């Protein structure tokens, strides 16, 4: 994920300081790992170095003095270009579940049992996420991020269901031979 573009996106609404950018990032991306302050300040310095952001004075609201940053015209163009670029669809997905399943087949294990147990863990997480997004307190950012996670877990589950059915058919063919 591109932290510099996300910070440029947050600056698109108006000048802001590092502490506020970190707080707004964590609100907008509630399921993501919180941004570290160090990373925010390093990224802001690089944006200034590259002419995509500039310092816009200081602010001291009954607290320590904070440096304000704002996006430049180049920054706005860079953001628009990045936001419109198509992300390459992954040609193949490498994933721990897939690796474990293959190893289980190779080692003569019980892949069906593994899939069933993994399915239970996926469903438990999907119930948690559904509760999060249907809570009356859920804001739009929370709903969108929970939807994203839910749909990816659902994709895993569909693959696991198809694989379990393939394994059943394969076993039946081997038994019949």
């Amino acid at each position, binding site marked *: 994920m591109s932290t510099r573009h996300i910070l440029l996106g947050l600056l698109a609404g108006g000048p802001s300081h590092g502490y506020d950018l970190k707080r707004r990032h964590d609100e907008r991306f509630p399921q993501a790992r919180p941004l570290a302050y160090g990373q925010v300040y390093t990224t802001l310095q690089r944006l200034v170095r590259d002419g995509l952001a500039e310092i816009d004075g200081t602010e001291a609201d009954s607290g320590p003095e904070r440096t304000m940053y704002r996006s430049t015209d180049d920054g706005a163009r860079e953001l628009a270009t990045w936001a419109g670029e198509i992300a390459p669809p992954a040609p193949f997905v490498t994933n721990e579940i897939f690796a474990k399943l293959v190893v289980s087949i190779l*080692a003569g*294990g*019980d892949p069906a049992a593994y899939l069933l147990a993994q*399915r239970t863990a*996926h469903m438990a997480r999907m119930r948690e*996420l559904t509760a999060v997004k*249907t809570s009356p307190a859920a804001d739009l950012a929370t709903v969108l991020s929970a939807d994203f996670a839910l749909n990816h877990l*659902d994709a895993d589950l569909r693959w696991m269901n198809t694989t379990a059915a393939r394994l059943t058919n394969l076993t039946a063919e081997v038994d019949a031979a």
Partner: protein
Amino acid sequence: MSDHNPSTVPLLAARGLVKEHGRTRALRGASVELGSGEILAVTGASGSGKSTLLHCLAGIVRPDEGSVAYAGNRLDQLPEKQLSELRRTDFGIVFQFGQLIPELTAVDNVALPLLLTGTARKEARERAGEWLERFGVRGQEEQRPGEMSGGQAQRVSLARALVTGPKVVFADEPTGALDSLASEQVMAALVHTARESGTAVLLITHDALTAAYADREVTLKDGVVVSAADAAMGSLGVSQ
């Protein structure tokens, strides 16, 4: 498998259900429990026996073998007349395609179960209107099913299933014909209302996103309930 205290009697308990349709064995010893106020998802592939299980639990068909107990009493042994009465008073049912009566307006469709249990027409229509409001379809009272979207019609079906204050709602693929946002609205409305009124829900679905609205899930495979707890620990069969 159940998270419920074993000392309390489950609202609905099926033991060792066997049911054949002609030469097809739809259920081969399925057992499941539903607690009072619990929302349980029953998932499984097509042909795994989900709908047959629902029909047995709701008293629509009688199992060939096994038992179904409702509040501790044998449902599968009740005479047809008492069974019909119980279905009218204690159970609500929703199908994939709402199966609303096409000639009746939304409010009359919802009022129908109340009229069948002897409620006066004016009161029945008033209560039906309140339920349509709870499901977010107020304003559609005088529309017929053909004039509504699939999501609206399904919410009318839910209102009809809940209007009599049932203890259990049986929902067979209630979102099966809906797009993702309409599914979400129907499920959110069902779960919210069921929790508010303490109604238990037995939800049949092949969709994991829908099943995730439930408190718990059981999976059917070839007519029996399979659970991860019964499966061997670890994919390499290493005992832990």
